[in-house]
């Protein structure tokens, strides 16, 4: 799956968080937040990252932007390892790769007005100042569908949809190419959600953006993403093109995840297969497949070895020893 024209390539990425350190001592155990994860995103694609809470989605997003230091592995951006960037490259990278937050409001400095917030990236990189800055900010606000007059407002006077749009304006201010969107809609109300999702899609088309789109809601991911990666407890368990995944699933967890989503249509009520048990703790997980304790198909091998990610069919990767096949279209 690792090809040449990829914009972002993640190889064997791993991040451990120390759990609790002794008085002076070394940490005794670690959260395996991201454990040996590899994938790649081509320019213009949207990679959807789904999984349950705490499975490491956010951590991957932050690693890919180098907002966190890795434990091991590498992330290539345009063919270069971002963890080896020098100052200049780093600065350039900061311009091109951006982040959209779950709750844009909390990412604002409440002391600054909208204009300052949106214009800050331009200022930091010395790209504009004075009236030019004002113009650029006005343009940006227009791009995300807001009135330029909002510039002088303070963020708390905005509605939730507007806040999210201001956040996006800030993220695209530097003509970014690659955007990590970490659950950009999950804090929004049903009726506002659609506005933002539409905007994300429009921006992508307009600016040829590449997204890493993180969400735990597979319905949203399906709507937006071209590819889906499913994570479970720090591991990538399945990866495929979106529609392929909704037709064929080779990992029992993916199947369970799709099953768990309620269908928003009373006419399609169905008996669902419920995944039992709880998500175990990511602290020092036992060897073997991480999903194995909850997996009804588990065999002995699952308990002993960690299944590698293999290409089950072209472009469809899965990490499972069992020959599981969940077919059937969810629509």
């Amino acid at each position, binding site marked *: 799956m690792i090809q040449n024209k990829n914009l972002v390539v993640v190889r064997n990425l791993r991040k451990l968080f120390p759990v609790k350190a002794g*008085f002076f001592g070394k940490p005794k155990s670690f959260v395996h937040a991201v454990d040996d994860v590899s994938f790649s995103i081509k320019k213009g694609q949207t990679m959807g990252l789904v999984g349950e809470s705490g499975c490491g989605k956010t951590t991957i997003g*932050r690693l890919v932007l180098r907002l966190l230091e890795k434990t091991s592995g590498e992330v290539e951006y345009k063919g270069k390892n971002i963890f080896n960037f020098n100052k200049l490259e780093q600065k350039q990278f900061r311009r091109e790769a951006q982040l959209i937050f779950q709750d844009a409001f909390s990412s*604002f400095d*409440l002391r600054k007005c909208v204009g300052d917030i949106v214009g800050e990236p331009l200022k*930091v990189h010395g790209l504009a100042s004075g009236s030019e800055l004002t113009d650029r900010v006005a343009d940006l606000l227009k791009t995300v*569908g807001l009135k330029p007059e909002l510039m002088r407002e303070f963020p708390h*006077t905005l509605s939730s949809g507007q806040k999210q749009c201001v956040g996006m304006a*800030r993220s695209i201010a530097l003509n970014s190419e690659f955007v990590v969107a970490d659950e950009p809609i999950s804090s929004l109300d049903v009726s506002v959600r659609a506005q933002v999702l539409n905007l994300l899609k429009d921006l992508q088309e307009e600016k040829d953006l590449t997204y890493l789109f993180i969400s735990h809601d597979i319905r949203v991911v399906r709507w937006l993403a071209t590819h889906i990666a499913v994570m479970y407890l720090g591991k990538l368990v399945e990866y495929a093109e979106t529609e392929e995944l909704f037709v064929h699933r080779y990992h029992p967890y993916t199947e369970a995840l799709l099953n768990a989503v309620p269908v928003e249509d009373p006419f399609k009520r169905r008996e669902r297969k419920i995944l039992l048990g709880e998500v175990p703790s990511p602290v020092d997980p036992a060897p073997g497949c991480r999903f194995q304790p909850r997996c009804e198909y588990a065999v002995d091998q699952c308990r002993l070895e960690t299944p590698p990610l293999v290409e089950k069919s072209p472009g469809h990767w899965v990490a499972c020893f069992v020959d599981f096949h969940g077919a059937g279209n969810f629509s």
Partner: protein
Amino acid sequence: MSETGLQDLKPMPSPGRQIYKPKGIIRFFARFEYNKIALVALIILIVIFAISIFAPYIAPYDPAKGVLTERLRPPTLERPAGGGFPHIFGTDQQGRDVLTRIMYGGRVSLTVAFTVVGICFIFGTVLGLISGYFGGWVDMVLMRVVDVVSSFPGLLVALAFVMVLGPSERNLIIALTVNGWMIHARMARSQVLALRESAMVESARAIGVSVPGMVFGHILPNIISPLITVFVLDLGHQIAAEANMSFLGFGVQPPKSSWGLMIGEGRQYIASAWWLVTFPGIMIGLTLLCLNLFGNWVREEFDPLSRKH
């Protein structure tokens, strides 16, 4: 884009949330609308501070010079024989005007408290910022130091300093400072820690803001309110500590005087001259009370951590 329809929306203030809005003294006072007591406290504080600052200009008498024959006169509204302002708080063991001495005493008490808290604040905050922002072993070492120092018997160590350095205002300040900086470091650190992981800082990092720009441009302005809360409350602490030390005779030394010292000196006359200890005590209590009321208000009003929906 027009389909999103967001342009047409007017911004609406969201309810139930108090958020920092800059500028304007009127706006500042308007914030007291729901806590009038805090406003009263603030006004009293301002008055006390003003009196202390301007004591040389407004005090009716010379604080050092007394009339021995006029010793220990009870509070009165009558003008003294030689004319002049009535000794409304009485006169002390040297025949000096107690009101005047309270004005000057407040000057010393507040100077000591402000100096101590000022030094502790700057020192502690910088340490806390460094410790919190950079984390790692720097943080660990600094916080262990804070832990250890916090477990020191504070008053005793202060007394030990005074014992070897000799009692004086300067040494008192040293002693109180040695004991006082940890809380500021702790506070700054915990605030930075909370903020360091916040979306705001991450967002700033994502657009490439430099480290100093981050610490002083983003973090410090956003944690300054809780730090100020601690500053205000600690001011009360240090006034009390100064009073305590001076009362015991290990603090400010005459001919300077502070409220605590006035009580300490006046206490041998308590049976015959109640006014010597009563008024300075009331002043300490009042100042502390107002600082607490005001500090609590600052905390409720500005502290992002206690701001809840």
